[in-house]
């Protein structure tokens, strides 16, 4: 091989450039390969830590549409054990007549409870107050213009359906 021979003066500069280029290129390629490999592992780790699927939801049968008259309310127990208050405010016979209020505070997720003597829902965590329709009237939820969450309702023929989560905590068992 020619590289074993002493390089003539005129060629040495070009040869050195080429060597430096090759050495630099190899280093960059190796470092890049490592970065890509570790980056892929990191991305896989991150994806592994992120929850695999959203919480399972399903449309559940709730009641017959004519089970509640206008102005009436009932409590329905969800599959997870949550009591859900269903109220009817209308006579159109559509799902819009009904309201299914969640007892989960829209502020930071605590459970509100009904205070009959004050005609309001109260959240003990940060003093959120809601009127009977679920609209926030005081506290941080009112400042953010929030209301108690409502479960989606759907009417199929004479039957009323509600969309709820199915998963419950281990403590239920």
């Amino acid at each position, binding site marked *: 091989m020619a590289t074993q021979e002493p390089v003539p003066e005129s060629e040495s500069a070009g040869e050195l450039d080429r060597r430096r280029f090759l050495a630099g290129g190899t280093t960059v390629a190796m470092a890049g390969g490592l970065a890509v490999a570790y980056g892929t592992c990191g991305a896989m780790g991150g994806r592994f830590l992120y929850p695999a699927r959203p919480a399972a939801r399903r449309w559940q049968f709730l009641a017959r549409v004519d089970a509640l008259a206008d102005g009436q309310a009932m409590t329905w127990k969800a599959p997870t054990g949550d009591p859900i208050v269903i109220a009817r405010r209308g006579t159109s016979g559509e799902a819009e007549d009904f309201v299914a209020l969640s007892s989960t505070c829209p502020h930071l997720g605590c*459970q509100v409870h009904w205070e009959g003597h004050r005609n309001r829902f109260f959240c*003990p965590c*940060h003093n959120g107050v809601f009127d009977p329709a679920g609209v926030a009237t005081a506290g*941080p939820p009112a400042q953010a213009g929030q209301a108690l969450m409502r479960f989606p309702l759907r009417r199929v023929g004479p039957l009323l359906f509600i969309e709820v989560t199915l998963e419950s905590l*281990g403590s239920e068992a």
Partner: protein
Amino acid sequence: MSLGAWFKERVPIDPGQLREMTNEPVPNHIKAWWWCLGGTPAYLFVVQIVTGILLAFYYEASPVTAYESVRYITDEAAFGWFLRGLHKWGATLMIAAVVLHQMRVYFTGAYRRPRELNWMIGMVLLVCTLMIGFTGYSLVYEQLSFWGATVGANIADSVPVVGGFSKELLLGGETYNDRTLSRFFMLHAAVLPGIMILLLIVHVTLIRLHGVTEFEFEKKKGAATDAEKPRFFNFFPDHAMTELIVGLVLMILLATLATALPATMGPKADPLITPEVIKPEWFFYVAFRWLKLMSATAAVLSMGFVFFLMFVWPFFDGWIRKRWPASEFSVWAGIFGVLAIVGLTVWEAAVAH
């Protein structure tokens, strides 16, 4: 071959060299007790690691088993009540010690150039300490643990843009679920302590490289007195002995607290009922009160801004001192900050809602 020579051949370090490397001259003002506050959280951190490893032998991180395993530790395992008490009170004292240490550094200006980076590492350590307190409190799986974790995760949710993502990452789902507790346990017992150990090594190394801040106290006594008295004393044995005494006092204090006010257990977590009176641990009172005063997003953003300001304070303070060299702004800002934190904490402690 003597045992000493045998050992030296295998560990080729000269004890003299080792002594020289570690025996840093310590400025005289360190003899005052409040300058031991940096060593205090480090000592308590070791207590937490030891007691934490012991507790982890029995703890089971799942909603079905967690509460029962903590009850077993508390009521049945030999000395379990004592170790749990040490761990609980160690956490309380550690947070208090970290806050006191930070106040000492702040009000003596020890964060100033060239020690800005160490202040910032300290701020990350503070955040880690608060997070490790939060996740640890959640592990007991009593009512307040559960609702504290729920509120904490939803606070993360209130952060614009990245909120939903970080909440799901923290809880392992959209809400608190069967896989949540094991995440908290891994954060509490592996991830956060690991980060803290690495940061502590850098923190202490930077202190040793820079040396402890020296003070130019007002020269009432004149230059002659300065020359008479040595300005430094030895780390070994003088300062090591001081730290030893601090460690002993802390152990007595911890043991007394763990015995006189043992760690108790509230009712088991119930995802359907939020207790009528709900409070986080005392060190989150300030944030809990702040959250009651405005919408969640406003509260989260303002608290984030305060933390950011604290994080970059050395540079902000440097800029102010360059423009107004005689300014005492940082002292007044610090006094205001401490009063605000104490005020909000006392307010939250004084009322039920």
